[in-house]
């Protein structure tokens, strides 16, 4: 789901673009948070925790909580709740601590 109407904010929607999540092709609106596009596509598990490998999902949505750290175009620890969606990006779940190239 996506929030379409909001009492205060006015969402200006970008064009529909394609990106990949775990090799799967998905669609989203350019400029929206990557997490919003994943959520709209039904993706609920964004990464797995470092010690116990438990699933972590969409939580604080303001770039604070580390719950949504993902690998975007090979860069680990990207906070997808505050990272804008660009066409063609490669989004992958992160297992524990990300690996620096």
């Amino acid at each position: 789901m996506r929030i379409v109407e909001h009492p205060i904010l006015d969402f200006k929607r970008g064009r529909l673009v394609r990106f990949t999540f775990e090799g799967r092709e998905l669609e989203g609106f350019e400029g929206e948070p990557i997490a919003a596009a994943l959520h709209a596509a039904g993706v609920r598990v964004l990464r797995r925790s470092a010690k116990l490998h438990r699933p972590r999902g969409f939580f604080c949505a303001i770039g604070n909580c580390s719950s949504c750290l993902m690998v975007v175009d090979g860069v680990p620890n990207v906070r997808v709740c505050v990272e804008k969606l660009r066409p063609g990006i490669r989004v992958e779940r992160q297992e524990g601590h990300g690996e620096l190239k």
Partner: protein
Amino acid sequence: MKTADIVIIGGGINGVSIAYNLAVRGCRRVVLLERKTLASGSTGRCGAGVRMQWGTEMNCRLARDSILRFERLNQELEYDGDIEFKQGGYLILAFHQRQWEQFQKNVALQNSLGIPSRLVSPAEARRIVPHLEVGDLIGGTFCPKDGHINPFKATQAYAEAAARLGVEIRKFTETVAIGKDAAGRVQRVTLADGEVIETPVVVNAAGPYSQLVGEMAGVALPVHSERHQILVTEPVAPKQGPMVMSFAHGLYCQQTPHGSFIMGIGDPHEPRGFDTGHSWQFLEDVASKVTTMMPALKEVRVVRQWSGLYNMTPDAQPILGEIPEVPGYFVAVGFSGHGFMLAPMTGVLLAEMILGLAPTMDVSMLNVGRFARGELIREPSVV
């Protein structure tokens, strides 16, 4: 009135190490006074790197024997936690010829003392730290025994062991005065709430505040404090084994077992004082230098910065021992940024001095009189 055989002022790694070493040698009426919490001063703020690679024989011996003790500290102190000793080594870089020549002398000295350090070429440095951009590097030295320890846990390990042996550790207890008898000997300490503890021996292990604790006994210690800033990044998968260090840049950078990088850089213009604030200039300075040396770190985010105080002496070497003018007043101060790594030996040596036992190692050159006599110690390997 409360009495003690020995009162230690300061609950950092050195205070608790001295307390433990006194207790384990049979001295049980020891009171340790800490103004805040254990490791709340310089210990808990330090980079917590430990290295055997020094440039004077005394420092090599002190550091070597301290690391040998750190290696089995969990067992020695019967600690139910873990001090998290990561022995990934130290890679120390040389960027100019004079430094390289000094490093050759250092390694020869270190090897003669059984320290397994070696000279490395730029290519070998890159094999040890593959993300190192060698640039104008001439070479370096590497010692696999060096590493990193959790300073909070090491302090806790000593404190718990000391407490089990009967040492009384009093946190949130500030000392305000040290009293002397007519002959000038230490007689008592007075606490902020007015309580007085009678004691013939006081140990100043107050780290950055050692100067103030010196003044309480009328002793003008030749020390001052100086802020050093540091930062920590988000954790990433293990990438860097050793500490990477450059004396030319005053820079160090280490990855902890948790995965975060800890790094710091010295500022030659830092004023003296007790300021423990921090600045964006530091962030910019350390980030630009570290990412020039190791560009891969550009992708790792900073999560926190803080600062701590070095307690400096004129020769950047500690002052250990009794103050001749005030019998019973001992100091373990002025560690100048390397107090954490020497703490195991500092505890042993101070305990031996206080109890009048034969010293494990001769460190008489570290007494306070060396400054008046002009016998400063020239250590070439300090950050």
